[in-house]
Structure formats: structure tokens, C-alpha cells
């Protein structure tokens, strides 16, 4: 469970202060597929980055599974991200010099509780799940955008994180590939009871979310349950 209390984030651009988050308070339950929506500049990506420990709030509190993230050192935050969190970025963010298999294995290789054999097995298994086993030795640039995003999801999932963050994962994809990615999220959410927090600006994505939080000017303006479509 994630508890967010009165979260504030202010960016300073010269003399101008921009309130990216202005008192956000939320609770996110385990297993939810939460959509954060809003116009450009509404603070949705900022909120995602705060929750993903990629940025620090100016004030407020984020508690994940009873742990106040503000108490973590830089190294502990890194390890928290490695063991507990997974990320999918808009531009896939794969390491261009690594093969598909190496990209997917990378976070697992750093875990102290995994042997090389386990890393190989887990990576292969997740590649099977996303249907890219036959591309495991290819470099990212040899894949389509949709395939790259699926690899990115596989990398995020290889450590079986508690929470999966997705920052506009379909922004660079056409509708067919977007649907493929969202179906994959949906399947992961259902089959693994995976908590997913996704930022989106596409209206039709809402059909996948269990819950939709809408932001405007850094504030939560609506928080509603949603009945997703049956995949």
C-alpha cells in the first residue's frame, strides 16, 4: 500500500516558482491499476517520479508498505528501486548497447538473492511471456517501437516488483501497439495481482484502469473508481 500525504513539489525556474504538486494526498492499494491523468503540466509525471523515488518532494510524506521513503539514504533508495519498484518509460529507455536478453537481465543481475541461473531463467521466462524469445539476441535498434516497449516492460517486471510505474508508455506508439502494451499491463495486473501506476493523457486508456486520479495544477481534482473493459 502507498500512502501519500500532502505532497508538495516546487520547481524554481529563475525567479519564477512553479508548483508542480500542491498538496496531493492519496492512498493506493495493492493490486490496483491506477491511471493518473491530466493535461500537460498538471503534475502527473512529477507525482509518478516522487512515488518512484526518482525525485524528492519539498514537503509531504510518501509511505510505501509502512516505510517512510524520506528516511532512506541514497543507496537505500537505489536498492528500494531495484528490489521493490519497476519502471516503464515513454521512450523505452533501453540500453542501446545491450541485447534484449541483457537489457531484461540487467536489474536481476544486481540482486544479491539471485544466482546467474535464476537470472537467466527468469529473464527467459518473462521474454516468453511477452513473446520476444526469438529476439533475445537482437539489439534494441533492431526492434519496432512496440517490441522495444515490451522489452522495457519485461525489464521492469524481471525482479517481480511490488509496484510498476509507467510514464506515458504508449506516447510513442501507434494504437495497435499501444493496445498490445496495455493488454500486457492488464494481464500482468490480473495474473500477478501487480500494482500498476500509469500516467496517461489518452482518453481511451481509461478503459484499462481500475481507478483514475485526475490532476490539475498539481492538485487532485478527481479520484474515481472505474470499471475496466474485459480484455
Amino acid at each position, binding site marked *: 500500500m502507498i500512502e501519500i500525504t500532502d505532497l508538495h513539489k516546487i520547481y524554481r525556474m529563475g525567479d519564477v516558482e512553479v508548483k508542480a504538486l500542491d498538496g496531493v494526498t492519496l492512498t493506493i492499494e495493492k493490486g490496483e491499476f491506477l491511471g493518473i491523468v491530466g493535461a500537460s503540466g498538471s503534475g502527473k509525471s512529477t507525482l509518478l517520479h516522487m512515488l*518512484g523515488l*526518482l525525485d524528492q518532494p519539498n514537503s509531504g510524506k510518501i509511505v510505501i508498505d509502512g516505510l517512510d521513503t524520506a528516511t532512506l539514504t541514497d*543507496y537505500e533508495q*537505489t*536498492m528500494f528501486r*531495484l528490489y521493490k519498484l*519497476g519502471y516503464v518509460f515513454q521512450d523505452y529507455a533501453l*540500453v542501446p*548497447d545491450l541485447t534484449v536478453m541483457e537489457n531484461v537481465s540487467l536489474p536481476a543481475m544486481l540482486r544479491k538473492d539471485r544466482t546467474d541461473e535464476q537470472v537467466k531463467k527468469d529473464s527467459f521466462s518473462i521474454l516468453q511471456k511477452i513473446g520476444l524469445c526469438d529476439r533475445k539476441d537482437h539489439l534494441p535498434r533492431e526492434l519496432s517501437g512496440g517490441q522495444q516497449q515490451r522489452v522495457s516492460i519485461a*525489464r521492469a517486471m524481471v525482479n517481480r516488483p511490488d509496484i510498476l510505474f509507467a510514464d506515458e508508455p504508449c506516447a510513442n506508439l501507434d494504437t495497435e501497439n499501444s493496445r498490445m502494451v496495455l493488454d500486457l499491463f492488464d494481464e500482468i495486473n490480473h495474473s500477478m495481482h501487480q500494482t500498476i501506476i500509469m500516467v496517461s493523457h489518452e482518453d481511451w486508456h481509461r478503459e484499462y484502469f481500475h481507478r483514475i486520479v485526475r490532476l490539475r495544477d498539481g492538485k487532485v481534482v478527481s479520484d474515481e473508481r472505474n470499471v475496466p473493459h474485459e480484455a
Partner: protein
Amino acid sequence: MGKKELKVAFLLALRSLQRGSRSSVLLTIVIIALCFTNMVFLPGLFNGIGEGIITQIVDYEVGNVLVSPKTGEQYVTDLDATLDLINGMPGVERATPHLSKGATLKYRQRILGVSVKAIKPTDEKFVSPLYKKMIAGSYLGESDTGEVIIGKPVAGDPTIKQEDEFQPSLGGVRVGDSITIEYANGYKKDYRVKGIYYTGWSSSDNTVYVTWSDMELVEGKPLSYAEYITVRAKPGYSEKFIKDELQQYGVAETVQTTGDLLSKVMGSILQSFDIINMVSLIVGIVITTVVLFIVITIKTINSRRQIGILRAIGVDKEVIMHTYGMQVVIMAVLGIFFGALLTAGISLYMTAHPIVTPEWSAYLLLTPEDYIMNSLILFLASIVAGYVPAWQVSREDIQSAMRA
């Protein structure tokens, strides 16, 4: 940093080198190789020049130990007894006397003032490699009279006009030709040229050698004195040991090792070489460090977003720092290896084709210690140059890096 982290850092470093910009990697390796060559070439050349000069001084001038007349005297006297004493000492390979006389050479229309040096050819063979340097004819025999060997510059080249000569010569004397030598004491005699030699050491090449017996004819009496005696040490015996021994055994003449003599003559030259070597080394290290620093800084700046992503997915900043550090280490090892190969190639070439000047000849002198020391220095400089920008970029906050 555990084993797993190092393994990931190495994988990222290796893949970046294998699959990143090959031209940039290759260029960096070439730069390191050339920096290594630059670092070792000049000192190696100076060492070679210094060593070459010292070797030639030992071979053709003073031997390992020089026995010269006591202060205020002109000659080493009681020659036979002195030679017997020195030759009987442990560690002495051979001692041989020298006596030089100023003379004028005449050959056809040419007249040339030179130094004529009397030697005992058999003993001389143990002390000087002159007998190996014959380029025409043969070396002197012990009982030869009326025969001389002359240096190539003295013999001259018949194809070069007198006015075009670098130094005066006899204009093309060949083996078997007769030349006239007129000594300062008025003694004049025709000699047959038995051989022509070339040592590369100017002073020796501008000398005419005659046998001791011939010089006795010039002097008109048996020679029981010499201008100086050169002593060759047996392998494994130091010059200092021989000098101390000679003094202990009562050799009353002035005894000096090559080191003693060189410290007076060569000391300031070698000191200047050391200063130039040090400047060259520092410049080489600075250039390498700056180049690698720039290369890795550019690489890290271009990879800022990727570094941000890696940190976001849970890769620790230490791993990221080592990723770039290891890339430099790999490139440095390859650069140093190719630099060492290149230098060894140049060294081999220069051994076969030494630098020859009218005064001396030299080659590239590199010892295993030179290779090891310069490799270590360059390696350490590379690590500093690689790790500093890697350390800087790995500490950047994730958001700034990802926005890059």
C-alpha cells in the same frame, strides 16, 4: 561494491566498447598508444645516445679503467712491469698500452695532419673491438712493420671532390696503397695500408694505427713507456673493483674508472638529458590525461540520460562510475599494449639502423623497467582521467540526468 556489481559494471563497459562508437574507441586507443610511444621514445633515445657514447668511449678510448701518468709526468714508465702487474690481477681481462704521436700523412697530392697511435694488436683485441670494424683489408698483426690501418674518414672517398668533403681526407686511399707518414720528430717512412676500419666514433676513425714495433722504429729505441694503459675488466667485475685492486697492488700511476672520467665529461650532458626526459614525460602524461578526460567527459555527457535511466532502474552510482572507469581501463590496457608493440618495433628498427652522426652513433635503448614504469604511470593517469568525469556524472541527480 560486490562481485555482482563489478560484473554488471564490466558487462556495461565491455558492451559499450564493443557496440558503441568503434571509431571513437579506436581513436582513443591510438592516442594512448602514441602517448606511450612519446613517453618512452625520447628518454629511450637519450639513453641510447648516452649509452652509445659511453660504450664507444670504453671501446675506443679508455677501456673500463684508464691508467695514466702520475701528475707532472708525461708517460707511464716501467711499462712491462706495470703491464705484467695489471694483467696478473683477478678481474682484469687485459691491459694494453697506447702511445700517440702527431704526424703528417702524404698520399699523392694530399697532405693530412693526424694522430698516429701505436698499439699491441693482440692485446688490443681483448680491450677494443677495433679489429671487428675492418671494412676493407685486415687488422694489424703483432709483428707487422711498415703497415698501418686507417679510419674511413682519413682514407676518404675518391668520388667526392676535395672542396666538397665534410672533413679533409687522403682522397680515396685503398688497401694496398702506400702512404707516407712524417712524424713530428722528423722520422719519415712509407707504409702500406693494410686495412681500413670504421667504428662510428670520430676520434678513433680519425686515427692511424701502427704496431708497437713500428713505433719503436720511429722512436729509435725499445718503448718502455706509454702514454696510457687501457684495462678491460672481466665480465662480472666492476670498474671500481679493478681500480681499488690496482691501487692496492701498488700501481703508482693515476687510475680512473670510466665512471670517474665520464662524471667529469658527461655529467652535465646526462643531467640535461634527464631534465628533457622529465619534461617529455610530464608533457606526455598531461596530454594523455587531458585527452582521456575529454573523451570520457564527452562520453558521459552524451550518456547522461542513459545514466539517469540506469539509476532509475536500481543501478547504483558506484556501478555507473565503474562502468566508465572500466572502459578507460580497457582502452588504456589496449593502448599501452599497442604502444609497447610500436615502440618495440621502432627499437628493433633503430638497432638495425642506428642514428649515425660524424661523431657518434646511437640506437633506442629501452629496458623492461622503462616499459613497466611508463606503463604504470600511463595506466594510473588513465584511471584518474577516466574515473574523475565518471565520478562526477554518477553523482548527478536522477531527474537532471534523465532530462538531459
